[in-house]
């Protein structure tokens, strides 16, 4: 039985969807051209993951094992459609930014993976929390990845923020005449930057493991 602390640790770090499970690469690579895009889509994904985990956990005793995958897909597709329509109706300015990416959440296999791995076997409350924390872990990586690519590519940070919060504007970090670094913005930049992020996570984990092994006080981590 996982505790809420374990669920958070798994979602944010140990089993982070983007840098540990390497799942759901389509949106991670396509949308992370700027921090605002990445975080916005990440939050929409987190919402869908929390809802779909909740629904699947609630219905888990009624779903026959043999047809669970099509039923899960049905649940995800219905919830994504509902979120898409609701955002179009009530959060229209944000929808204009994210509109084309919302339907893509259906294709993000991390959503299905968490239902299958967690929600199908757990109570509703921890399952909902798991979906949300996995989504937040994904959002954090999308935000960092987007921020790095945007900074290297254009010298700015948070461009597009005015579409989410009117009246604010992007931060110009490098001088205005920075020529830009095109590779960072194009798809190869996403692969390369993600590679560095995965490496950084593994390096930190390895260092922590080494420190734990060297310390006589730490019986086990």
């Amino acid at each position, binding site marked *: 039985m996982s505790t809420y602390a374990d669920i958070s640790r798994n979602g944010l770090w140990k089993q982070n969807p983007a840098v540990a499970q390497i799942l759901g690469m389509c949106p991670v690579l396509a949308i992370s051209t700027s921090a605002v*895009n990445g975080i916005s889509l990440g939050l929409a994904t987190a919402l869908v993951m929390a809802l779909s985990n909740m629904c699947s956990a609630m219905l888990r005793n009624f779903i026959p094992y043999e047809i669970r995958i099509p039923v899960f897909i049905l649940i995800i597709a*219905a919830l994504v459609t509902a979120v898409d329509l609701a955002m*179009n109706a009530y959060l*229209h300015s944000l929808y204009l930014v994210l509109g084309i990416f919302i339907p893509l959440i259906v294709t993000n296999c991390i959503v299905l993976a968490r239902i299958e791995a967690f929600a199908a076997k757990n109570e509703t409350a921890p399952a909902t929390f798991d979906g949300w924390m996995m989504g937040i872990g994904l959002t954090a990586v999308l935000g960092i990845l987007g921020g790095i690519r945007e900074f290297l590519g254009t010298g700015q940070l948070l461009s597009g923020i005015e579409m989410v919060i009117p009246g604010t504007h992007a931060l110009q970090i490098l001088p205005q005449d920075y020529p830009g670094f095109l590779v960072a913005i194009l798809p190869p930049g996403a692969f390369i930057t993600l590679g560095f992020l995965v490496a950084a996570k593994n390096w930190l984990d390895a260092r922590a493991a080494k420190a734990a092994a060297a310390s006589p006080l730490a019986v086990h981590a």
Partner: protein
Amino acid sequence: MSRATALSMSLRNALMMVLFTLAFTGLMASVYQATKVPIAASAREEKLKLIGEVLPKGDYDNDLLKDSVDIGLPPELDLREAGHAYRARKQGQPVAILLEALAHDGYAGDIGLILAIRQDGRVIAVRTTEQKETPGLGDYIDIHKDKKKDSPWITQFNELGFNQVAQAQWKVKKDGGRFAYHTGATISARAVTNATRRAVQFVEANKDKLFATPTGGKL
């Protein structure tokens, strides 16, 4: 497993699948019904806001969205589906034609444009309605993404027609024309410039008919 239990299990699963499908289709249908009115309202709102960017509200006094002509699929505008041109009038006098155009030759997908063009063929303003050009590089064609806030790139077409800039000159400087572009991101600027030229060409060729055709009529 005997044949009878295999059959009953299949039947049970099929029945469950149908039940789940009905339940979740019902959920989608009810959300669709509940959001239909606000979505239509925001679409209309957005259209008017977009028109407001190329033509100030005070410049016309008719109900623009209702004063339209069916322009079909003119080759100059490269539309995906049959389009409409809207006529802006003030006290019955023609002010401008509003139309949409599409450029297929952007860097990443189609670039959608909305243009307000005077009856004499001069552009009042052009704006992008959709574009997926490279963020921070080619997306300066979108006035909201352009870093030069005092004289955005797309405003250089304002008040120009073929009398001011000859049709053959209506290109980016790299192609021997007279419109500026950003180094390293010519493709986006070229696509918008050429699409704008074609739209002006269309209005030049049809300017009398565009205003004279009765509302709702075909060009």
